[in-house]
Protein backbone atom coordinates (compact mmCIF):
# COMPACT_ATOMS: atom_id res chain seq x y z
CA UNK A 1 0.00 0.00 0.00
CA UNK A 2 1.45 3.36 -0.95
CA UNK A 3 0.51 6.34 1.13
CA UNK A 4 3.51 8.63 1.33
CA UNK A 5 4.46 9.55 4.84
CA UNK A 6 2.28 6.99 6.60
CA UNK A 7 4.44 3.96 5.92
CA UNK A 8 7.74 5.32 7.27
CA UNK A 9 5.85 6.89 10.19
CA UNK A 10 4.28 3.56 11.15
CA UNK A 11 7.62 1.78 10.70
CA UNK A 12 9.28 4.23 13.09
CA UNK A 13 6.41 3.82 15.52
CA UNK A 14 6.76 0.02 15.42
CA UNK A 15 10.50 0.33 16.08
CA UNK A 16 9.76 2.54 19.11
CA UNK A 17 7.18 0.02 20.26
CA UNK A 18 9.76 -2.76 20.14
CA UNK A 19 12.10 -0.56 22.16
CA UNK A 20 9.29 -0.13 24.70
CA UNK A 21 8.86 -3.91 24.85
CA UNK A 22 12.56 -4.71 25.14
CA UNK A 23 13.87 -1.63 26.97
CA UNK A 24 13.33 -2.81 30.56
CA UNK A 25 14.83 -6.22 29.86
CA UNK A 26 17.89 -4.65 28.21
CA UNK A 27 18.41 -2.35 31.19
CA UNK A 28 17.95 -5.32 33.52
CA UNK A 29 20.50 -7.35 31.58
CA UNK A 30 23.03 -4.49 31.68
CA UNK A 31 22.58 -4.00 35.42
CA UNK A 32 23.05 -7.71 36.09
CA UNK A 33 26.75 -7.11 35.36
CA UNK A 34 26.96 -4.59 38.20
CA UNK A 35 29.98 -4.84 40.49
CA UNK A 36 29.90 -6.22 44.03
CA UNK A 37 29.42 -2.83 45.70
CA UNK A 38 26.87 -1.55 43.18
CA UNK A 39 23.14 -1.42 43.73
CA UNK A 40 20.23 -2.37 41.47
CA UNK A 41 20.49 0.96 39.61
CA UNK A 42 22.84 3.15 37.60
CA UNK A 43 25.66 3.98 37.47
CA UNK A 44 27.50 0.76 36.79
CA UNK A 45 30.52 1.04 39.08
CA UNK A 46 32.46 -1.71 37.43
CA UNK A 47 31.56 -4.51 35.05
CA UNK A 48 31.67 -7.92 36.70
CA UNK A 49 29.98 -11.28 36.77
CA UNK A 50 29.89 -11.19 40.56
CA UNK A 51 26.10 -11.42 40.84
CA UNK A 52 26.00 -14.47 38.59
CA UNK A 53 28.54 -16.17 40.86
CA UNK A 54 26.48 -15.04 43.83
CA UNK A 55 23.35 -16.54 42.31
CA UNK A 56 25.04 -19.88 41.71
CA UNK A 57 26.47 -19.90 45.24
CA UNK A 58 30.07 -19.43 44.05
CA UNK A 59 30.61 -16.08 45.73
CA UNK A 60 32.46 -16.47 49.01
CA UNK A 61 31.00 -14.09 51.55
CA UNK A 62 28.26 -11.61 51.00
CA UNK A 63 26.07 -9.11 52.76
CA UNK A 64 23.22 -10.30 50.53
CA UNK A 65 21.61 -13.67 51.12
CA UNK A 66 21.46 -16.05 48.21
CA UNK A 67 18.25 -16.25 46.16
CA UNK A 68 16.36 -19.36 47.29
CA UNK A 69 15.92 -20.75 43.80
CA UNK A 70 17.59 -24.18 43.80
CA UNK A 71 14.87 -26.49 45.12
CA UNK A 72 12.01 -24.37 43.85
CA UNK A 73 13.46 -24.62 40.34
CA UNK A 74 13.26 -28.42 40.49
CA UNK A 75 9.69 -28.23 41.80
CA UNK A 76 8.63 -25.82 39.07
CA UNK A 77 10.13 -28.03 36.37
CA UNK A 78 8.38 -31.14 37.69
CA UNK A 79 5.10 -29.27 38.04
CA UNK A 80 5.40 -27.92 34.50
CA UNK A 81 6.19 -31.40 33.21
CA UNK A 82 3.17 -32.98 34.94
CA UNK A 83 0.94 -30.16 33.71
CA UNK A 84 2.24 -30.55 30.16
CA UNK A 85 1.50 -34.27 30.02
CA UNK A 86 -2.02 -34.05 31.44
CA UNK A 87 -3.17 -30.92 29.62
CA UNK A 88 -1.85 -32.13 26.27
CA UNK A 89 -3.67 -35.47 26.63
CA UNK A 90 -6.88 -33.74 27.71
CA UNK A 91 -6.51 -31.18 24.92
CA UNK A 92 -6.07 -33.80 22.20
CA UNK A 93 -9.00 -35.87 23.49
CA UNK A 94 -11.37 -32.90 23.72
CA UNK A 95 -10.40 -31.49 20.32
CA UNK A 96 -10.89 -34.96 18.79
CA UNK A 97 -14.36 -35.04 20.39
CA UNK A 98 -15.21 -31.69 18.83
CA UNK A 99 -14.73 -33.12 15.34
CA UNK A 100 -18.13 -34.76 15.79
CA UNK A 101 -21.16 -32.52 15.97
CA UNK A 102 -23.10 -33.09 19.17
CA UNK A 103 -25.70 -31.34 21.27
CA UNK A 104 -24.29 -29.08 23.95
CA UNK A 105 -20.99 -28.51 22.14
CA UNK A 106 -21.35 -24.75 22.62
CA UNK A 107 -21.54 -24.80 26.45
CA UNK A 108 -18.82 -27.47 26.58
CA UNK A 109 -16.56 -25.25 24.45
CA UNK A 110 -17.08 -22.26 26.70
CA UNK A 111 -16.63 -24.33 29.87
CA UNK A 112 -13.17 -25.34 28.66
CA UNK A 113 -12.24 -21.86 27.44
CA UNK A 114 -13.30 -20.41 30.80
CA UNK A 115 -10.23 -22.08 32.30
CA UNK A 116 -7.90 -19.60 30.61
CA UNK A 117 -10.21 -16.67 31.34
CA UNK A 118 -10.84 -17.04 35.08
CA UNK A 119 -8.27 -14.95 37.00
CA UNK A 120 -5.73 -17.10 38.79
CA UNK A 121 -6.26 -15.30 42.06
CA UNK A 122 -9.95 -16.34 42.03
CA UNK A 123 -9.55 -20.06 41.31
CA UNK A 124 -6.57 -20.04 43.64
CA UNK A 125 -8.72 -18.60 46.42
CA UNK A 126 -11.52 -21.06 45.65
CA UNK A 127 -9.16 -24.03 45.68
CA UNK A 128 -7.62 -22.89 48.97
CA UNK A 129 -11.08 -22.56 50.53
CA UNK A 130 -12.13 -25.94 49.17
CA UNK A 131 -9.05 -27.74 50.47
CA UNK A 132 -9.41 -26.03 53.86
CA UNK A 133 -13.02 -27.15 54.11
CA UNK A 134 -12.32 -30.70 52.99
CA UNK A 135 -9.23 -30.88 55.18
CA UNK A 136 -6.91 -31.61 52.27
CA UNK A 137 -3.36 -30.33 52.63
CA UNK A 138 -2.25 -27.84 49.99
CA UNK A 139 0.85 -28.67 47.95
CA UNK A 140 2.39 -27.75 44.62
CA UNK A 141 1.94 -31.28 43.27
CA UNK A 142 -1.77 -31.53 44.20
CA UNK A 143 -3.82 -28.35 44.56
CA UNK A 144 -1.51 -26.20 42.44
CA UNK A 145 -1.13 -28.90 39.82
CA UNK A 146 -4.87 -29.28 39.15
CA UNK A 147 -5.20 -25.50 38.78
CA UNK A 148 -2.29 -25.33 36.37
CA UNK A 149 -4.03 -27.91 34.19
CA UNK A 150 -7.26 -25.88 34.37
CA UNK A 151 -5.22 -22.99 32.93
CA UNK A 152 -3.13 -24.76 30.26
CA UNK A 153 -5.65 -27.35 29.04
CA UNK A 154 -7.75 -24.69 27.19
CA UNK A 155 -4.61 -23.57 25.33
CA UNK A 156 -3.76 -27.13 24.33
CA UNK A 157 -7.41 -27.66 23.35
CA UNK A 158 -7.54 -24.55 21.12
CA UNK A 159 -4.27 -25.43 19.39
CA UNK A 160 -5.46 -28.99 18.69
CA UNK A 161 -8.84 -27.68 17.54
CA UNK A 162 -7.07 -25.49 14.97
CA UNK A 163 -5.10 -28.52 13.78
CA UNK A 164 -8.15 -30.79 13.54
CA UNK A 165 -10.11 -28.12 11.67
CA UNK A 166 -7.62 -28.41 8.82
CA UNK A 167 -7.46 -32.19 9.00
CA UNK A 168 -9.68 -34.02 6.54
CA UNK A 169 -11.31 -36.96 8.25
CA UNK A 170 -11.58 -38.95 5.00
CA UNK A 171 -7.79 -39.46 5.06
CA UNK A 172 -8.16 -41.56 8.18
CA UNK A 173 -11.22 -43.29 6.78
CA UNK A 174 -9.37 -44.18 3.59
CA UNK A 175 -6.62 -45.78 5.64
CA UNK A 176 -9.09 -47.73 7.76
CA UNK A 177 -11.12 -48.93 4.79
CA UNK A 178 -7.94 -50.16 3.10
CA UNK A 179 -7.62 -52.58 5.99
CA UNK A 180 -4.98 -50.78 8.04
CA UNK A 181 -5.47 -51.39 11.74
CA UNK A 182 -6.62 -48.45 13.87
CA UNK A 183 -3.31 -48.49 15.76
CA UNK A 184 -1.31 -48.37 12.52
CA UNK A 185 -3.62 -45.68 11.15
CA UNK A 186 -3.00 -43.55 14.21
CA UNK A 187 0.76 -44.03 13.96
CA UNK A 188 1.11 -43.55 10.20
CA UNK A 189 -1.70 -41.13 9.35
CA UNK A 190 -3.20 -39.31 12.32
CA UNK A 191 -0.10 -38.74 14.42
CA UNK A 192 2.10 -37.18 11.68
CA UNK A 193 -0.69 -34.69 10.93
CA UNK A 194 -1.35 -33.70 14.53
CA UNK A 195 2.29 -33.82 15.73
CA UNK A 196 3.12 -30.11 15.13
CA UNK A 197 0.00 -29.23 17.14
CA UNK A 198 0.92 -31.59 19.95
CA UNK A 199 4.40 -30.08 20.11
CA UNK A 200 2.99 -26.54 20.23
CA UNK A 201 0.47 -27.54 22.89
CA UNK A 202 3.28 -29.01 24.96
CA UNK A 203 5.43 -25.90 24.58
CA UNK A 204 2.55 -23.65 25.63
CA UNK A 205 1.56 -25.82 28.58
CA UNK A 206 5.12 -26.06 29.84
CA UNK A 207 6.00 -22.38 29.62
CA UNK A 208 2.65 -21.21 31.03
CA UNK A 209 2.83 -23.59 33.96
CA UNK A 210 6.53 -22.95 34.61
CA UNK A 211 5.83 -19.22 34.90
CA UNK A 212 2.42 -19.43 36.61
CA UNK A 213 2.23 -17.40 39.76
CA UNK A 214 -1.31 -16.29 40.67
CA UNK A 215 -2.74 -19.84 40.66
CA UNK A 216 0.11 -21.11 42.81
CA UNK A 217 0.16 -18.33 45.41
CA UNK A 218 -2.64 -19.66 47.64
CA UNK A 219 -2.41 -23.32 46.75
CA UNK A 220 1.25 -24.31 46.96
CA UNK A 221 1.37 -24.74 50.72
CA UNK A 222 4.79 -24.79 52.39
CA UNK A 223 7.10 -25.75 49.51
CA UNK A 224 7.48 -22.86 47.09
CA UNK A 225 7.69 -22.97 43.31
CA UNK A 226 10.10 -20.75 41.40
CA UNK A 227 7.77 -17.75 40.76
CA UNK A 228 6.78 -17.80 44.44
CA UNK A 229 10.41 -17.64 45.54
CA UNK A 230 10.97 -14.71 43.20
CA UNK A 231 7.89 -12.93 44.50
CA UNK A 232 9.13 -13.39 48.05
CA UNK A 233 12.22 -11.33 47.26
CA UNK A 234 10.13 -8.38 46.02
CA UNK A 235 8.99 -7.33 49.45
CA UNK A 236 12.56 -6.90 50.71
CA UNK A 237 15.22 -4.83 48.99
CA UNK A 238 16.18 -6.15 45.57
CA UNK A 239 19.76 -6.74 44.48
CA UNK A 240 21.36 -7.31 41.08
CA UNK A 241 21.36 -11.07 41.74
CA UNK A 242 17.66 -10.98 40.90
CA UNK A 243 18.58 -9.38 37.57
CA UNK A 244 21.20 -12.06 36.92
CA UNK A 245 18.53 -14.63 37.65
CA UNK A 246 16.17 -12.90 35.18
CA UNK A 247 18.81 -13.13 32.46
CA UNK A 248 19.45 -16.82 33.15
CA UNK A 249 15.75 -17.82 33.15
CA UNK A 250 15.26 -15.94 29.91
CA UNK A 251 18.16 -17.86 28.38
CA UNK A 252 16.60 -21.09 29.64
CA UNK A 253 13.27 -20.23 27.99
CA UNK A 254 15.04 -19.44 24.76
CA UNK A 255 16.72 -22.83 24.90
CA UNK A 256 13.29 -24.42 25.16
CA UNK A 257 12.12 -22.33 22.22
CA UNK A 258 15.13 -23.37 20.14
CA UNK A 259 14.55 -27.06 20.95
CA UNK A 260 10.95 -26.62 19.88
CA UNK A 261 12.05 -24.92 16.67
CA UNK A 262 14.57 -27.66 15.88
CA UNK A 263 12.07 -30.46 16.53
CA UNK A 264 9.51 -28.69 14.36
CA UNK A 265 12.02 -28.12 11.57
CA UNK A 266 13.26 -31.69 11.68
CA UNK A 267 9.72 -32.93 11.53
CA UNK A 268 8.65 -30.72 8.63
CA UNK A 269 11.86 -31.60 6.76
CA UNK A 270 11.01 -35.28 7.20
CA UNK A 271 7.46 -34.68 5.99
CA UNK A 272 8.63 -32.80 2.89
CA UNK A 273 11.15 -35.54 2.08
CA UNK A 274 8.29 -38.00 2.25
CA UNK A 275 6.10 -36.05 -0.17
CA UNK A 276 9.14 -35.62 -2.43
CA UNK A 277 9.43 -39.39 -2.68
CA UNK A 278 5.83 -39.57 -3.69
CA UNK A 279 6.41 -37.01 -6.41
CA UNK A 280 9.32 -39.03 -7.76
CA UNK A 281 7.20 -42.16 -7.88
Amino acid sequence: MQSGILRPALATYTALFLLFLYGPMIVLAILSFQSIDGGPQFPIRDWSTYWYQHLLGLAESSRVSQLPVGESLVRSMMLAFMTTVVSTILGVMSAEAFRTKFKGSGPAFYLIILGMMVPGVLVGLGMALLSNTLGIGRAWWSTSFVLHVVYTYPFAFLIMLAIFNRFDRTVEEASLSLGVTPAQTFRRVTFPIIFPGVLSAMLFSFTLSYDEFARTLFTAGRDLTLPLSIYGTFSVEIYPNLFAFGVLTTLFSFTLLVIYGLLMKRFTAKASRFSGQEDAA
Partner: protein
Amino acid sequence: MSAFSTDTLATSAQTAESPALIRERKDRRRALGLLTPGLIWMALFMVLPMVMVVYVSFWTQTTFAVNSELTTASWERFLSSPTYLSAIWTTLRIWLIVLVLTILVGYPVALFIGLFVRNKTIQTALLVACVIPFWTSFLIRVIAWRPMLGTEGAINTILLKLGVISEPLTFLLFSEFSVLVGMTQIYCVFMVGPITFMLGRIDISVIEAARDLGASFGTVFRRIILPLSLPGVMVGSIFVSVMVLGEFATAASLSGRKVNLLGNIIVSQVGSLKWAFAAVAGVVLTIIITAVIALALRLVDLRKEM
Protein backbone atom coordinates in the same frame (compact mmCIF):
# COMPACT_ATOMS: atom_id res chain seq x y z
CA MET B 1 -16.80 -59.92 9.62
CA SER B 2 -19.74 -61.28 7.62
CA ALA B 3 -21.47 -62.48 10.76
CA PHE B 4 -21.07 -59.03 12.20
CA SER B 5 -22.56 -57.28 9.18
CA THR B 6 -25.59 -59.57 8.91
CA ASP B 7 -26.10 -59.08 12.61
CA THR B 8 -26.07 -55.30 12.18
CA LEU B 9 -28.40 -55.61 9.22
CA ALA B 10 -30.80 -57.68 11.25
CA THR B 11 -30.93 -55.21 14.10
CA SER B 12 -31.27 -52.27 11.80
CA ALA B 13 -34.09 -53.97 9.97
CA GLN B 14 -35.77 -54.67 13.28
CA THR B 15 -35.62 -51.12 14.55
CA ALA B 16 -35.82 -49.59 11.07
CA GLU B 17 -32.66 -47.55 11.57
CA SER B 18 -30.19 -46.83 8.81
CA PRO B 19 -26.51 -47.76 9.32
CA ALA B 20 -25.66 -44.08 8.94
CA LEU B 21 -27.86 -43.26 11.90
CA ILE B 22 -26.28 -46.00 14.00
CA ARG B 23 -22.83 -44.78 13.10
CA GLU B 24 -23.76 -41.24 13.92
CA ARG B 25 -24.93 -42.30 17.35
CA LYS B 26 -21.76 -44.32 17.87
CA ASP B 27 -19.66 -41.29 16.90
CA ARG B 28 -21.57 -39.11 19.30
CA ARG B 29 -21.07 -41.58 22.13
CA ARG B 30 -17.34 -41.68 21.34
CA ALA B 31 -17.17 -37.87 21.33
CA LEU B 32 -18.85 -37.66 24.71
CA GLY B 33 -16.51 -40.30 26.07
CA LEU B 34 -13.49 -38.32 24.88
CA LEU B 35 -14.84 -35.09 26.28
CA THR B 36 -15.93 -36.34 29.70
CA PRO B 37 -12.52 -36.38 31.48
CA GLY B 38 -11.81 -32.77 30.49
CA LEU B 39 -15.25 -31.56 31.51
CA ILE B 40 -15.08 -33.40 34.84
CA TRP B 41 -11.66 -31.83 35.47
CA MET B 42 -13.07 -28.36 34.79
CA ALA B 43 -16.16 -28.99 36.93
CA LEU B 44 -14.17 -30.27 39.91
CA PHE B 45 -11.22 -27.88 39.83
CA MET B 46 -12.70 -24.70 38.34
CA VAL B 47 -16.48 -24.58 38.82
CA LEU B 48 -16.48 -26.12 42.30
CA PRO B 49 -13.80 -23.73 43.69
CA MET B 50 -15.71 -20.77 42.25
CA VAL B 51 -18.93 -22.01 43.88
CA MET B 52 -16.94 -22.35 47.09
CA VAL B 53 -15.86 -18.69 46.88
CA VAL B 54 -19.50 -17.58 46.65
CA TYR B 55 -20.50 -19.91 49.50
CA VAL B 56 -17.69 -18.83 51.86
CA SER B 57 -18.48 -15.15 51.26
CA PHE B 58 -21.57 -15.78 53.43
CA TRP B 59 -19.67 -17.52 56.21
CA THR B 60 -19.01 -16.03 59.62
CA GLN B 61 -15.58 -14.49 60.02
CA THR B 62 -13.96 -14.68 63.44
CA THR B 63 -10.53 -13.26 64.21
CA PHE B 64 -8.43 -16.05 62.78
CA ALA B 65 -10.92 -18.45 61.21
CA VAL B 66 -14.21 -18.83 59.43
CA ASN B 67 -17.12 -21.08 60.34
CA SER B 68 -19.95 -22.15 58.12
CA GLU B 69 -22.71 -20.29 59.92
CA LEU B 70 -24.34 -18.23 57.21
CA THR B 71 -24.38 -14.46 57.54
CA THR B 72 -24.19 -11.37 55.36
CA ALA B 73 -21.88 -9.61 57.82
CA SER B 74 -18.84 -9.77 55.52
CA TRP B 75 -20.85 -8.35 52.66
CA GLU B 76 -22.16 -5.52 54.84
CA ARG B 77 -18.68 -4.73 56.05
CA PHE B 78 -17.27 -4.82 52.54
CA LEU B 79 -19.96 -2.62 51.02
CA SER B 80 -19.79 -0.05 53.82
CA SER B 81 -16.00 0.24 53.89
CA PRO B 82 -14.50 3.12 51.91
CA THR B 83 -11.25 1.15 51.51
CA TYR B 84 -12.93 -1.76 49.75
CA LEU B 85 -15.25 0.41 47.69
CA SER B 86 -12.34 2.51 46.51
CA ALA B 87 -10.58 -0.74 45.51
CA ILE B 88 -13.52 -1.48 43.19
CA TRP B 89 -13.24 1.99 41.73
CA THR B 90 -9.44 1.71 41.34
CA THR B 91 -9.78 -1.68 39.64
CA LEU B 92 -12.30 -0.32 37.14
CA ARG B 93 -10.27 2.82 36.48
CA ILE B 94 -6.95 1.00 35.97
CA TRP B 95 -8.70 -1.56 33.75
CA LEU B 96 -10.27 1.10 31.52
CA ILE B 97 -7.08 3.16 31.22
CA VAL B 98 -4.93 0.10 30.44
CA LEU B 99 -7.51 -1.16 27.93
CA VAL B 100 -7.54 2.18 26.10
CA LEU B 101 -3.73 2.42 26.26
CA THR B 102 -3.21 -1.06 24.84
CA ILE B 103 -5.57 -0.26 21.95
CA LEU B 104 -3.94 3.12 21.26
CA VAL B 105 -0.40 1.77 21.55
CA GLY B 106 -1.10 -1.55 19.85
CA TYR B 107 -3.33 -0.59 16.92
CA PRO B 108 -0.74 1.32 14.84
CA VAL B 109 1.73 -1.54 15.35
CA ALA B 110 -0.87 -4.04 14.19
CA LEU B 111 -1.71 -1.77 11.26
CA PHE B 112 1.92 -1.73 10.20
CA ILE B 113 2.56 -5.46 10.61
CA GLY B 114 -0.79 -6.65 9.28
CA LEU B 115 -1.35 -4.30 6.39
CA PHE B 116 1.80 -2.42 5.42
CA VAL B 117 4.23 -5.33 5.60
CA ARG B 118 3.22 -7.68 2.85
CA ASN B 119 6.35 -9.81 2.94
CA LYS B 120 5.34 -12.93 4.92
CA THR B 121 8.82 -13.50 6.35
CA ILE B 122 9.19 -9.96 7.70
CA GLN B 123 5.63 -10.12 8.99
CA THR B 124 6.34 -13.32 10.92
CA ALA B 125 9.66 -11.95 12.16
CA LEU B 126 7.98 -8.82 13.54
CA LEU B 127 5.24 -10.85 15.24
CA VAL B 128 7.84 -13.18 16.76
CA ALA B 129 9.75 -10.10 17.98
CA CYS B 130 6.57 -8.99 19.77
CA VAL B 131 6.03 -12.40 21.38
CA ILE B 132 9.62 -13.12 22.47
CA PRO B 133 9.41 -11.05 25.70
CA PHE B 134 6.79 -13.58 26.82
CA TRP B 135 9.49 -16.13 27.22
CA THR B 136 10.81 -14.10 30.11
CA SER B 137 9.20 -14.76 33.45
CA PHE B 138 6.20 -12.50 34.13
CA LEU B 139 7.53 -11.38 37.51
CA ILE B 140 10.94 -10.59 36.05
CA ARG B 141 9.30 -8.45 33.37
CA VAL B 142 7.42 -6.56 36.09
CA ILE B 143 10.51 -6.03 38.24
CA ALA B 144 12.50 -4.92 35.17
CA TRP B 145 10.59 -1.64 35.30
CA ARG B 146 12.19 -0.74 38.63
CA PRO B 147 15.72 -0.04 37.33
CA MET B 148 14.06 1.63 34.33
CA LEU B 149 11.79 4.06 36.19
CA GLY B 150 13.47 4.54 39.57
CA THR B 151 14.95 7.86 40.70
CA GLU B 152 18.38 6.49 39.77
CA GLY B 153 16.93 4.49 36.91
CA ALA B 154 17.67 4.51 33.21
CA ILE B 155 15.09 7.12 32.17
CA ASN B 156 16.08 9.62 34.87
CA THR B 157 19.78 9.06 34.17
CA ILE B 158 19.31 9.69 30.45
CA LEU B 159 17.10 12.75 30.96
CA LEU B 160 19.55 14.22 33.48
CA LYS B 161 22.49 13.65 31.13
CA LEU B 162 20.60 15.28 28.28
CA GLY B 163 19.82 18.24 30.50
CA VAL B 164 16.08 17.92 29.97
CA ILE B 165 15.49 17.85 33.70
CA SER B 166 17.62 19.10 36.57
CA GLU B 167 16.22 16.81 39.24
CA PRO B 168 15.14 13.17 38.91
CA LEU B 169 11.44 12.63 38.27
CA THR B 170 9.94 10.91 41.30
CA PHE B 171 6.48 10.17 39.94
CA LEU B 172 7.85 7.54 37.56
CA LEU B 173 8.14 4.68 40.05
CA PHE B 174 5.94 3.60 42.97
CA SER B 175 2.95 5.44 41.61
CA GLU B 176 -0.11 4.74 39.50
CA PHE B 177 1.97 5.80 36.52
CA SER B 178 4.41 2.91 36.86
CA VAL B 179 1.53 0.42 37.22
CA LEU B 180 -0.10 1.74 34.04
CA VAL B 181 3.18 1.67 32.08
CA GLY B 182 4.03 -1.82 33.32
CA MET B 183 0.61 -3.27 32.54
CA THR B 184 0.48 -1.63 29.10
CA GLN B 185 3.85 -3.10 28.19
CA ILE B 186 2.98 -6.56 29.47
CA TYR B 187 -0.51 -6.86 27.98
CA CYS B 188 -0.13 -4.85 24.77
CA VAL B 189 0.87 -7.89 22.76
CA PHE B 190 -2.51 -9.52 23.43
CA MET B 191 -4.03 -6.58 21.56
CA VAL B 192 -1.46 -6.48 18.74
CA GLY B 193 -1.85 -10.20 17.94
CA PRO B 194 -5.61 -10.46 17.27
CA ILE B 195 -5.77 -7.10 15.43
CA THR B 196 -2.83 -8.06 13.20
CA PHE B 197 -4.54 -11.37 12.47
CA MET B 198 -7.75 -9.63 11.38
CA LEU B 199 -5.92 -6.98 9.31
CA GLY B 200 -3.85 -9.66 7.61
CA ARG B 201 -7.04 -11.27 6.35
CA ILE B 202 -8.22 -8.12 4.52
CA ASP B 203 -8.15 -8.64 0.77
CA ILE B 204 -5.76 -5.96 -0.45
CA SER B 205 -7.66 -5.58 -3.73
CA VAL B 206 -10.63 -4.18 -1.80
CA ILE B 207 -8.44 -1.35 -0.55
CA GLU B 208 -6.93 -0.85 -4.00
CA ALA B 209 -10.39 -0.63 -5.53
CA ALA B 210 -11.38 2.02 -3.02
CA ARG B 211 -8.22 4.01 -3.76
CA ASP B 212 -8.80 3.69 -7.51
CA LEU B 213 -12.25 5.13 -6.98
CA GLY B 214 -10.61 8.14 -5.34
CA ALA B 215 -10.99 7.40 -1.63
CA SER B 216 -8.40 9.02 0.63
CA PHE B 217 -6.52 6.93 3.17
CA GLY B 218 -8.72 8.41 5.89
CA THR B 219 -11.85 7.20 4.13
CA VAL B 220 -10.34 3.78 3.42
CA PHE B 221 -9.38 3.48 7.07
CA ARG B 222 -12.77 4.55 8.37
CA ARG B 223 -14.92 2.59 5.91
CA ILE B 224 -12.86 -0.57 5.31
CA ILE B 225 -9.90 -1.14 7.63
CA LEU B 226 -11.46 -0.15 10.95
CA PRO B 227 -14.73 -2.13 10.57
CA LEU B 228 -12.87 -5.25 9.40
CA SER B 229 -10.39 -5.05 12.28
CA LEU B 230 -13.00 -4.53 15.01
CA PRO B 231 -13.43 -8.26 15.80
CA GLY B 232 -9.68 -8.33 16.46
CA VAL B 233 -9.99 -5.34 18.79
CA MET B 234 -12.83 -7.13 20.61
CA VAL B 235 -10.91 -10.39 21.02
CA GLY B 236 -7.86 -8.44 22.18
CA SER B 237 -10.02 -6.47 24.61
CA ILE B 238 -11.37 -9.68 26.13
CA PHE B 239 -7.84 -11.00 26.67
CA VAL B 240 -6.54 -7.74 28.14
CA SER B 241 -9.65 -7.20 30.30
CA VAL B 242 -9.65 -10.59 32.02
CA MET B 243 -5.92 -10.34 32.68
CA VAL B 244 -5.91 -6.77 33.97
CA LEU B 245 -9.01 -7.22 36.14
CA GLY B 246 -7.46 -10.23 37.86
CA GLU B 247 -4.10 -8.51 38.33
CA PHE B 248 -2.34 -7.91 41.61
CA ALA B 249 1.37 -8.64 41.11
CA THR B 250 2.15 -5.57 38.98
CA ALA B 251 0.36 -3.27 41.40
CA ALA B 252 2.03 -4.98 44.37
CA SER B 253 5.56 -4.63 43.04
CA LEU B 254 5.44 -1.33 41.14
CA SER B 255 2.96 0.88 43.00
CA GLY B 256 4.61 0.91 46.42
CA ARG B 257 1.20 -0.02 47.90
CA LYS B 258 -0.35 3.12 46.49
CA VAL B 259 -2.58 1.20 44.08
CA ASN B 260 -4.89 -1.38 45.64
CA LEU B 261 -6.80 -3.48 43.17
CA LEU B 262 -9.43 -6.05 44.15
CA GLY B 263 -6.75 -8.69 43.53
CA ASN B 264 -4.48 -7.00 46.08
CA ILE B 265 -7.36 -6.94 48.57
CA ILE B 266 -7.85 -10.68 48.12
CA VAL B 267 -4.14 -11.37 48.62
CA SER B 268 -3.85 -9.22 51.74
CA GLN B 269 -7.06 -10.64 53.25
CA VAL B 270 -5.88 -14.21 52.68
CA GLY B 271 -2.56 -13.19 54.22
CA SER B 272 -4.35 -12.20 57.42
CA LEU B 273 -6.61 -15.28 57.28
CA LYS B 274 -9.76 -13.23 56.62
CA TRP B 275 -11.11 -15.85 54.26
CA ALA B 276 -14.70 -14.56 54.21
CA PHE B 277 -13.64 -11.03 53.27
CA ALA B 278 -11.33 -12.38 50.60
CA ALA B 279 -14.27 -14.40 49.28
CA VAL B 280 -16.49 -11.31 49.15
CA ALA B 281 -13.81 -9.45 47.17
CA GLY B 282 -13.56 -12.53 44.95
CA VAL B 283 -17.30 -12.55 44.24
CA VAL B 284 -17.28 -8.83 43.46
CA LEU B 285 -14.36 -9.39 41.07
CA THR B 286 -16.19 -12.33 39.47
CA ILE B 287 -19.29 -10.20 38.94
CA ILE B 288 -17.25 -7.43 37.29
CA ILE B 289 -15.37 -9.84 35.02
CA THR B 290 -18.55 -11.72 34.08
CA ALA B 291 -20.23 -8.45 33.16
CA VAL B 292 -17.29 -7.39 31.02
CA ILE B 293 -17.02 -10.74 29.21
CA ALA B 294 -20.80 -10.93 28.72
CA LEU B 295 -20.76 -7.48 27.19
CA ALA B 296 -17.85 -8.35 24.91
CA LEU B 297 -19.42 -11.67 23.85
CA ARG B 298 -22.58 -9.86 22.80
CA LEU B 299 -20.42 -7.91 20.39
CA VAL B 300 -18.29 -10.76 19.08
CA ASP B 301 -18.66 -14.54 18.70
CA LEU B 302 -15.44 -15.91 20.15
CA ARG B 303 -15.92 -19.38 18.72
CA LYS B 304 -16.30 -18.05 15.20
CA GLU B 305 -13.23 -15.82 15.38
CA MET B 306 -10.79 -18.46 16.60
